[in-house]
């Protein structure tokens, strides 16, 4: 079966010289979820904008259900639904009016548009709120309405740009459920995310994007196999002790421990067993950890494994406001990368 979505060496340089995409290629199997995983500024939104015909690539081709997104843009727009990174809904209209408008612009008959709007409001738990203007909606409700709007024309292909960024945990889990349902119905989904956990939970295949390039591609299992299923975090009393601990623990992990001041991180295959072995090894070396923890690997761990450096927020270097590059520790930078999704690349996309 030909791929449902195809990106073929997509490249684009924005005015001002930002090389946002530098040859991105991937193919999405019909009826599957494909995850584009990458930090802020990696180029995920730019890929989505090109594939949804909103932006023209400098070079390369995109196809949706076999149709070229540039040459056959008009046709392609009838094939997909899009929920962007920032819920693009009309605040002055009610939920129902928003959905009817999008349905009419998808050329549904008036009666069908009305029925479809009602169905979707019910499905997304917005039946009660349907006749209120969006000014009264919470962030989670807006996201749901945005997703409902993307589904108005029952598209075979769905683009979801960071659908759960900024959502509370329960809304996130609900949204994952909706995506599961859609895939069961046969929809192909391209999803961008900054969370390895989300890609792991939803996607059959994942492409890791960094600086406008795909640096790794495969199933989440393959990705984690390269990575170790769990990350062991150990904190020592001082840096010298940390260096000695890294030496002592090196044989236990996949690859080398990553040292960061008094902290070290080590990807391991079997968490509990590795933990026991690690404590033994530390004890033998006469080291006593101040902190000792196991955790799920994150996007940063993927980056460490793939590139040897943390997933950094590149947007700061591009002169976008609100993106001071800062010179904090890697950990601080990482934390910022996750929470700054509104102030960072937003400036580039929201307009």
């Amino acid at each position, binding site marked *: 079966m030909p791929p449902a979505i195809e990106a073929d060496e997509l490249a684009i340089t924005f005015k001002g010289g930002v090389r946002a995409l530098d040859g991105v290629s991937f193919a999405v199997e019909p009826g599957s979820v494909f995850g584009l995983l990458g930090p802020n500024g990696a180029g995920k939104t730019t890929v989505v904008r090109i594939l949804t*015909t909103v932006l023209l690539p400098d070079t390369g081709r995109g196809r949706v259900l076999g149709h070229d997104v540039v040459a056959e843009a008009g046709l392609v727009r*009838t094939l*997909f639904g899009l929920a962007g990174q920032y819920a*693009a809904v009309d605040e*002055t*209209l009610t939920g129902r009016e928003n959905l009817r408008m999008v349905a009419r*612009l998808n050329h*549904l008959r008036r009666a069908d548009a009305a029925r479809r709007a009602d169905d979707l409001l019910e499905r997304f738990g917005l039946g009660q709120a349907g006749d209120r203007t969006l000014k009264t909606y919470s962030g989670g409700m807006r996201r749901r309405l945005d997703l409902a709007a993307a589904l108005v*024309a*029952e598209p075979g292909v769905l683009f979801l740009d960071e659908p759960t960024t900024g959502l509370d945990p329960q809304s996130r889990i609900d949204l994952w459920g909706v995506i599961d349902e859609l895939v069961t119905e046969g929809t192909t989904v391209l999803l961008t995310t900054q969370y390895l956990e989300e890609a792991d939970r939803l996607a059959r295949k994942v492409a890791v994007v960094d600086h406008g390039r795909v640096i790794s591609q495969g199933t989440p299992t393959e990705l984690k196999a390269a990575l170790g299923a769990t990350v062991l975090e150990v904190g020592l009393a001082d840096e010298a002790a940390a260096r000695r601990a890294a030496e002592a623990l090196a044989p236990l992990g996949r690859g080398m421990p990553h040292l960061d001041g008094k902290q070290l991180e080590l990807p391991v295959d079997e968490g509990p067993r590795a933990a026991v072995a690690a404590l033994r090894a530390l004890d033998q070396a006469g080291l006593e950890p101040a902190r000792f923890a196991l955790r799920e690997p994150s996007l940063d761990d993927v980056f460490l494994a793939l590139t040897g450096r943390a997933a950094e927020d590149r947007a700061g270097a591009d002169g976008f406001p609100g993106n001071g590059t800062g010179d904090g520790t890697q950990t601080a930078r990482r934390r910022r990368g996750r929470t700054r999704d509104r102030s960072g690349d937003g400036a580039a996309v929201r307009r």
Partner: protein
Amino acid sequence: MTAGVLAGRRPGAPGGRLRWVVQDALTMTGRNLIHYVRIPGSLFFSGIQPIMFVLLFRYVFGGAIKLHGGSYANYLIPGIFVQTVTFGAVATSIGLAEDLQKGLVERFRALPMARSALLAGRTLADLVRNVFVVVLITGVGYAVGFRVQTNAGAFIAGLLLILLFAFALSWGFAVIGLSAPDSETAQVMSFPILFPLTFASSAFVPVQDMPGWLQGFAAHQPISVEVGMARSLMLGGPTASDLWQALAWSFGLLLVLVPLAVSRFRHRTT
């Protein structure tokens, strides 16, 4: 995928593209009209502000303005018509800039709708609103003593020509909205154009009482031409040349501004 809804979507229906161009523009017009009704500020601009201008000029400034024959109420109302629809066109620049800013334009661009509908829906919504506005001003005008001196046909022709001019202006303000980084800037960019055009014109004060250096501009700029046309048609006077000049301005502006707005819209990528 249920067949029912898909059958309701008719990409190849008779009428073809032109039909969608019209339907999509009307859908967007409807959406923008809802905005006019729900956003208190826009209701103020199109409803209350013209009434305040009528009262202000009729009863506060009017007495100080020296006329060369005729009543000030009759002199004022044709000016108010043109001034109000001109001010109203700012809504297009603010609205478009806001849609761009909020990512709505991006969403619309990814829909299978006619590309033209976003701009046409804006300018058509302005037109519909202006129809209500001129009816409102006619009522208020009558209440303060304005009386048509010609006949109903000429009066309505005057209104239609003003509406045409306003429609042309909306495209100009669309260009501003598409050039501004956000809606506040769009508003700020609009006023330096609005104020000299509306106040350094014959809308409220006879041009021959202005300083000499201003008269050249004030007499020939489009607002004065439109006001002159409206006075001729509503109060009587040398109609033909005023009419041609007014029409020429409207069509000339449309001819320049529509392609300009469309090309700004095409090339704006964010």
